[in-house]
């Protein structure tokens, strides 16, 4: 149900609703007046008034509900959660809800839920677990009688929003009232909310300020099989919380059958499995390994189109470029097939995260009709990244083509680089992909590798995100949660010691942790920001450099997808436009120029046109604007001054560059003595090149970078020129010259230190003379 909603139903609709909500305060609504009267009295009052309206509801007893009782309430006239009569729409939705596979096992679920504190629930995609289980819980847990809420976490923001919207419709209430959602930078809940969908990261943030999660009576961790960092940390945390709070119930929901691992982790909690609505999928392998998986994939798609029955095709590839390229090739070839072999029409759609929403929406269009009545049926092909593996479901897919690769994040703590690498998928992932073919009817999955390769070269499970990421923000969160013993913290898959050590050291250099590993004042403040610690520290220290307004803008721009658009067909023009904003000292300042230009009245007159003309992404700039606003609120709450150096001051840009150093002094590279554009990263000693996209116009000896891009060559992207004196001044412990080995870097630092000393002396001398 849920999954059918595309990723694309972004904030726009939700935002509109939020506004609507503020216009009509429910407290002014005469029909709801009783609720507020009751709120102040004892908890039972709520129950009594509702019971009068919906007699079946009066029979409900907390943790005694049966499927029959719940059904009676649902069939009643009055919505027991807001006292309004059920609408016609509700009745029709109710019918479809009761056809979902989970519904058949409602009693079983309720019994297990009532019996134990932790429950592991396995339901394949399409079983309805994300929308129905939280509602089953509501009818049994009755959180409103306890003044508590039920939380259901989602790994993705879009899922949290769209599911909340769906469930609000199912429960016949307005989104944001009884059912709401809470995601980073957007809170769509009210005091009335009893069911809250939220990102796992959001729940973790809440836990930082309330470490028993006291406002919840039940917490549902959905899509736990995805093993995001936040879900993993939450599981470790909840394991401790349940001991302190016997009244708190936990449900772990997973879509794959490796649930025994969850069971074992949660002290052998009971497990309930609900079959999904799936059909058998036949799996094919290639007899030999393929020399070129992209080419093989394209050929396979065309082969299916030529020889297989009606049904849409889903092809998994790794990245945007590869996908766009394949879409083009498939479309060309299919045209030819149509002309020459009288094949049916074929429509090919790309799908990846950075695709604009309206383009993503297109994948839900039905397959094209035959060219003439009675002709060969049309077909649609979706060429997608991993998104289509679990996050969203496209009905009508009968054939899956799986080359066995995906782009995966990996973190190397030795050189401190997080990169996206094309890597073989896991067996579990391959099975998940195959399963996509059996959603509507029996399907086929074509794997572009041998069966031996499947057995031998694929790992069983994809490594959880926690093992593949930089942990500095996670460690900061854990410290804020009051977990000091990171060695024995019970994670399902604890990280490698070296990765954890790196994180601790980074936080120490950023002064978020002191030398004994205790959280400092700065660290506590930094943990308030939903940002990478380096960015947070930069933001917090920016008032000292008189440029917090500017640094706030840059931070926001660094937190959103690329603002510069560079279509393949108009690269030159796009580069010319980018140069309009270019600042000779680097890309961070160029980003700032872009933002200032975007906020100018001239651009705001028609932002869409303006962005189009200047090859900028309106969506990125708008979300940067939103992020900036949210961060501004946190800054104001933390009593950080918003200041700027006057633009006329010649130190305007220098101050900004100094402030950048305060956060990114660990991401600095120095020019090599020979070789154009060749740099070497400080301390990690990696040879890097400036990314070709940089606007840096001067020969900078020292540069600070935002990102290390690992491809065939190592690039540093988004760079700005800095001075070693600043680094020595701002981060003296990190740039302790005695810790540097003899060489170019050390001598350059020594010279800078001399210059600093001389300047100091000069400053001191005149005063002496006087």
């Amino acid at each position, binding site marked *: 149900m849920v999954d059918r909603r595309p990723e694309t139903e972004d904030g726009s609709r939700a935002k509109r609703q939020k506004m609507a909500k503020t216009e009509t305060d429910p407290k002014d609504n005469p029909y709801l007046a009783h609720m507020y009267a009751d709120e102040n009295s004892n908890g039972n009052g709520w129950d009594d008034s509702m019971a009068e309206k919906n007699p079946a509801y009066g029979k409900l007893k907390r943790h005694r509900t049966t499927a029959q009782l719940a059904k009676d309430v649902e069939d009643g006239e009055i919505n027991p959660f807001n006292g309004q009569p059920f609408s016609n729409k509700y009745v029709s939705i109710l019918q479809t809800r009761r056809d979902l596979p989970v519904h058949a096992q409602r009693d079983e679920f309720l019994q297990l839920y009532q019996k134990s504190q932790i429950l592991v629930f396995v339901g394949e995609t399409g079983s309805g677990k994300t929308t129905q289980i939280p509602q089953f819980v509501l009818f049994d847990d009755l959180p409103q009688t306890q003044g508590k809420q039920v939380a259901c976490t989602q790994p993705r923001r879009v899922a949290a929003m769209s599911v909340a919207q769906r469930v609000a419709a199912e429960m016949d209430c307005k989104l944001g009232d009884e059912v709401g959602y809470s995601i980073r930078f957007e809170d769509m809940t009210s005091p009335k909310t009893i069911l809250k969908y939220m990102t796992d990261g959001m729940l973790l943030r809440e836990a930082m300020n309330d470490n028993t999660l006291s406002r919840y009576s039940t917490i549902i961790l959905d899509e736990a099989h995805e093993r995001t960092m936040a879900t993993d940390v939450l599981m470790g945390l909840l394991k401790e919380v349940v001991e302190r709070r016997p009244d708190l119930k936990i449900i772990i929901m997973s879509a794959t059958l490796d649930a025994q691992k969850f069971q074992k*982790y949660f002290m052998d909690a009971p497990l309930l499995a609900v079959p999904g609505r799936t059909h058998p999928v036949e799996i094919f392998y290639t007899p030999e390994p393929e020399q070129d998986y992209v080419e093989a994939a394209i050929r396979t798609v065309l082969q299916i189109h030529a020889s297989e029955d009606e049904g849409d095709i889903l092809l998994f590839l790794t990245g945007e470029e590869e996908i766009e390229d394949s879409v083009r090739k498939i479309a060309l070839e299919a045209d030819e097939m149509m002309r020459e072999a009288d094949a049916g029409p074929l429509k090919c759609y790309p799908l990846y995260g950075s695709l604009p929403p309206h383009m993503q929406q297109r994948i839900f269009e039905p397959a094209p009709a035959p060219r003439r009545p009675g002709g060969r049926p049309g077909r649609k092909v979706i060429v997608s990244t991993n998104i289509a593996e679990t996050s969203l479901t496209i009905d009508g897919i009968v054939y899956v083509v799986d080359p066995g690769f995906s782009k995966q994040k990996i973190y190397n703590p030795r050189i401190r680089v997080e990169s996206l*690498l*094309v890597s073989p998928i896991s067996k579990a992932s391959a099975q998940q992909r195959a399963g996509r073919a059996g959603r509507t009817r029996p399907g086929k999955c074509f794997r572009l590798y041998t069966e031996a390769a499947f057995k*031998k070269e694929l790992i069983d499970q994809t490594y959880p995100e926690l*093992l593949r990421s930089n942990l500095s923000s996670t460690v900061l969160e854990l410290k804020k949660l009051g977990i000091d013993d990171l060695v024995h*913290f019970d*994670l399902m898959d604890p990280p490698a010691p070296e990765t*954890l*050590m790196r994180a601790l050291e980074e936080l120490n250099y950023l002064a978020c942790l002191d030398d004994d590993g205790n959280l400092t004042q700065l660290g506590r403040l930094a943990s308030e920001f939903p940002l990478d610690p380096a960015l947070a520290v930069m933001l917090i220290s920016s008032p000292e450099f008189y440029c917090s307004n500017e640094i706030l803008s840059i931070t926001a721009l660094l937190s959103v997808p690329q603002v510069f658009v560079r279509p393949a067909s108009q690269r030159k023009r796009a580069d010319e436009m980018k140069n309009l904003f270019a600042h000779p000292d680097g890309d961070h300042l160029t980003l700032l120029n872009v933002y200032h230009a975007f906020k100018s009245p001239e651009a705001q007159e028609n932002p869409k046109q303006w962005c189009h003309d200047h090859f900028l992404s309106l969506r990125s700039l708008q979300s940067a604007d939103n992020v900036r606003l949210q961060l501004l609120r946190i800054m104001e709450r933390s009593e950080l001054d918003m200041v700027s150096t006057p633009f006329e001051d010649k130190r305007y840009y220098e101050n900004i560059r100094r402030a950048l150093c305060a956060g990114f002094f660990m991401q600095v590279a120095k020019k090599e003595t020979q070789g154009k554009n060749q740099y070497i990263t400080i301390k990690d000693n990696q040879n890097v090149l400036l990314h070709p996209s940089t606007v840096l116009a001067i020969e900078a000896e020292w540069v600070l970078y935002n990102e290390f891009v690992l491809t065939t060559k190592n690039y540093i992207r988004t760079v700005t020129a800095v001075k070693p004196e600043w680094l020595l001044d701002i981060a003296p412990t990190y740039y302790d010259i005695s810790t540097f080995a003899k060489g170019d870097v050390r001598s350059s630092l020594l010279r800078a230190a001399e210059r600093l000393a001389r300047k100091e002396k000069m400053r001191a001398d005149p005063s002496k003379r006087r």
Partner: protein
Amino acid sequence: MSDEEDYFLPLEDQRVFGAGIRRKRVPFVRSSEHELNTTNATTAAPNTGRPGLSIADKYLSIVMPKSSQSKTANSATEQKPAICEVCNLPLYPSSTTTTTTTIDNNYESTDTHKPHESSLAHQLCLTHSHPPSHLDRTRHGLRYLSSYGWDPDSRVGLGAPGREGIREPIKGRLKADTVGLGADGDSDDDESRRKVGIKRREREKKAEKNRPARVEKLNAKEIRKGDLEARRRGEKLKEMFYQREDVQKYLG
């Protein structure tokens, strides 16, 4: 000369410790001038008559207390082959001579040692001593972890006891080509063979691709010939077409 040799040999033994206590044993021969080596370790051994042996015995009892226990268990129940506690293999007293002769000659005659302990399977199952971790002991992060009881040399990961995690970070491999899964395998025997096969097939495929390209590069004579043939074929077709009865009838 011989002095020095005697001095270094036991050290050699120590280096391999539990791992190769007898797998790679250096054979000892009694010195002919025994009186001279008074300070030597070999002669300073207790006077049991077979000094080298008893040292090894003592050594074994320290390093492998379990295997010596199993040895006694074995002697008690002779008809049923006991299971070695270390390697989970049955202990066959009869197999002594056959296995040991190949490994070391000196101990074959002395029946006090069960040769099972010197078998490769058993040796591999013994706990080994490991080199210390490579981590820099001065690192701040390590100090923190150590303060909570993590020992870098313990060869266990972090996490709750019994559920320790990985010890080394996951390594990624840069993939810059579009070679399919399994086709760029490592130097595995099976795989390299497959690779050779692939290369051959690839060559064939390339050759196939090249062939039509070569046809285009015909010389004038061949082109003329081809042209002629095509014309002839065309004429033949025309003939066939126009000579059909119904067509001729139609054409009158």
